[in-house]
């Protein structure tokens, strides 16, 4: 079943024993389709953040969000797909790399701004981050060489800065840097995110 669109949902939860199973259990009990789930600590060590990718129509997504909210340990639920956001996923892959093909693999690594993180006489282990489509494309490029093992983290996502503010700043983004002294607004980390 793969009806409906993909939605990326950020869930802030109490960093407590059993929370992950509550969230995962909710999805299995209610028959929702979960495509990926990643979880990690936030700035506040008592709070964890989960990024879920869920497939469903608007009706299903509304229920998913309400049901997540209903869990006692869930603090906040945001449907990131409703706003501007940045998504990234990381992939580690070990691929056959005989001397004759090493140069070609390295060219792809370069183009994809990936990194070789381990080498053996017959293989490369490569790390790459990016959006889902980029990782898929990279995997397709490596496939002919023979992929030994592959692991993906699942998506993490974050909202971009508030829109109104960005609109004000936008024209300045085109200006050459350092012109007319430091602009306090362009120092705003949220604005940097927009340039990505």
């Amino acid at each position, binding site marked *: 079943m793969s009806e409906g669109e993909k939605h990326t949902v950020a869930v802030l939860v109490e960093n407590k*024993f059993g929370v992950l199973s509550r969230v995962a*259990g909710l999805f299995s009990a209610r028959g929702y389709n979960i495509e990926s789930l990643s979880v990690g600590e936030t700035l506040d060590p008592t709070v964890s953040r989960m990024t879920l990718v869920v497939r469903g129509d608007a*009706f299903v997504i509304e229920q998913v969000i*309400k049901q997540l*909210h*209903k869990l006692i340990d869930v603090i906040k639920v945001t449907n990131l797909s409703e706003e501007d956001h940045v998504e990234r996923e990381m992939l580690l892959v070990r691929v056959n790399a005989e001397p004759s093909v090493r140069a070609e693999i390295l060219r792809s690594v370069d183009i994809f701004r990936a990194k070789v993180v381990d080498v053996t006489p017959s293989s490369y282990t490569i790390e790459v981050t990016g959006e889902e489509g980029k990782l898929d494309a990279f995997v397709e490029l490596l496939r002919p060489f023979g992929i030994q093992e592959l692991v993906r983290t699942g998506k993490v996502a974050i909202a971009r800065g508030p829109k109104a503010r960005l609109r004000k700043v936008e024209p300045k983004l085109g200006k050459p840097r350092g012109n007319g002294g430091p602009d306090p607004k362009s120092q705003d980390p949220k604005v940097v995110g927009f340039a990505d």
Partner: protein
Amino acid sequence: MKLSGARILLECLKREGVDIVFGLPGGAVLPIYDALYDFEGLRHILVRQEAAAGHAAEGYARTTGKVGACIVTSGPAATNLVTALQDALMDSIPIVAFTGQVPTHLIGNDAFQEADNVGISRSATKHNYLVKDGAELSAIIKEAFHIASTGRPGPVHVDLPKDILVKEWNFDYPEHVHLRSYNPTYEGHPGQIKKAARALVRAKRPVLYVGGGAISADASPELMELAELTQIPITQTLMGLGAFPMAHPLSLDMLGMHGTYYANMAVHHSDVLVSVGARFDDRVTGRVDAFAPKAEIIHIDIDPASISKNIKVDIPIVGDCKRVLAKLVEAVREELRAYPAGVVREARRQWAEQVGEWKRDQPLRYEWSDDVIKPQHVVQEISNLTNGEALIVTGVGQHQMWAAQYYRFRHPRSWCTSGGLGTMGYGLPCAMGVQAGNPGKLVVNIDGDGSFVMNSQELATCYEERLPVKTVIINNGGHGMVRQWQRIIYKERFCAIDFHGSPDFVKLAEAYGCTGIRATKPGDVVPALEKMIATPGPVVLDVWVDKDECVYPMVPAGGANTDMILAPPSREVRERAMKSQTGF
């Protein structure tokens, strides 16, 4: 003050206002029972099977408005309790269940009587806890009672490892609970309430549809005020029975699969439908696309997840039913001042006429027989003899539906039934809890012969604890509701429904020290019921009824409410019913 974990538990229960706890001891909870030995101010009722402890806590909670509590041991006891937890979850009944667990160092070791209690109960509770640190015990118990009783009420489970109960911990009972992730909304949005009031005043064919949430919120006075102020007919769900007196001229009685013709017709033709603490369950709506197709739907519910889950809602109001209704009454008064009263009155008069016509055309009815007892007659007589004042509990099946149809409820919190989960065997243990929480009141368990035997061992508890529950077994010699479905929908291919070895219920009652009475002829019914009510102590009245009687009206599963079958169906109707059943 340093106390053992077990003692801390009891102190916390006392501070939460718990006066009765239902339970059954075992290895892992022995420290609790040791502490209970000389603890004052807490009555323990020893049940005979753990699920009964849960159902009794449910009955206690539903009829008293307090939180029910139960204690059972680890492993098999905890798994036995799961049915009661799920039952309370589906029906939004506030209970806190404590289970024992093997000592923390043995958890995950496949120790004796170990089960992953919190893993198992996770989806059957509103929330659950495994206490890993005794220093958190009292805070967890405080939270458990808070979560169970606030927002949409429900069961909370606390798993207690034995070493936590034995060791001593600092006892400091917190005054308040603060949970940053749990803040139910009580006040409805004023803008939404205003919108609802406008819709209600302008409606030509409005209906109020009231569920168990109205009872949990004690919203009956506000409901009465709203109904009378705007002259809106009102129908109740199985869980909502008693929220509005059935003798009231505006009452349409129950709706849904076995609801009245007039309730289902009124809902179907309504132009504004106000749901109060009800969740558009499939047994209420029938086929959803044919449910109240012309109505603008207003839904008042404390649980946002219930809104627009099954049916698209036009005006959602998240909040406590009592507070929202009070505000809605105010808003309607305001609206009525601005709207020509004559127009409203005329619209209501026409609607009342139409509803009255449906009521006259198709009242609830059954065919009288001089030879066999009709089950509906039994319920009617219970209703007459108790004047609608008894606390009524049921099992699950045909008898449950007849009780819902024919008992004339007058008060909220006087009805306990397993609505959402449909747990057979719920009757007797629940009735025990009701009786324990309401000493001196008449508690009648209207049960089926199939349902009753699932927990008949609790007669021992009734006898021992002097709980004078009166059980009326509507005895039709088998699983009547299944028989009804096999008759109407499965071409009379009767399979696994008849009992050829039921016990003699009179002797069974006597074996437990209770009184047994039997009624086999229509003329026996009233004298037997009178005798039952007059006899002190627990009584079982075994009534042999017509085994071929079916519950009507009936909406075949998957059918629209307007497809309801009103009387024993013809072949043609049965064939249509067969076709309409989808996905069940």
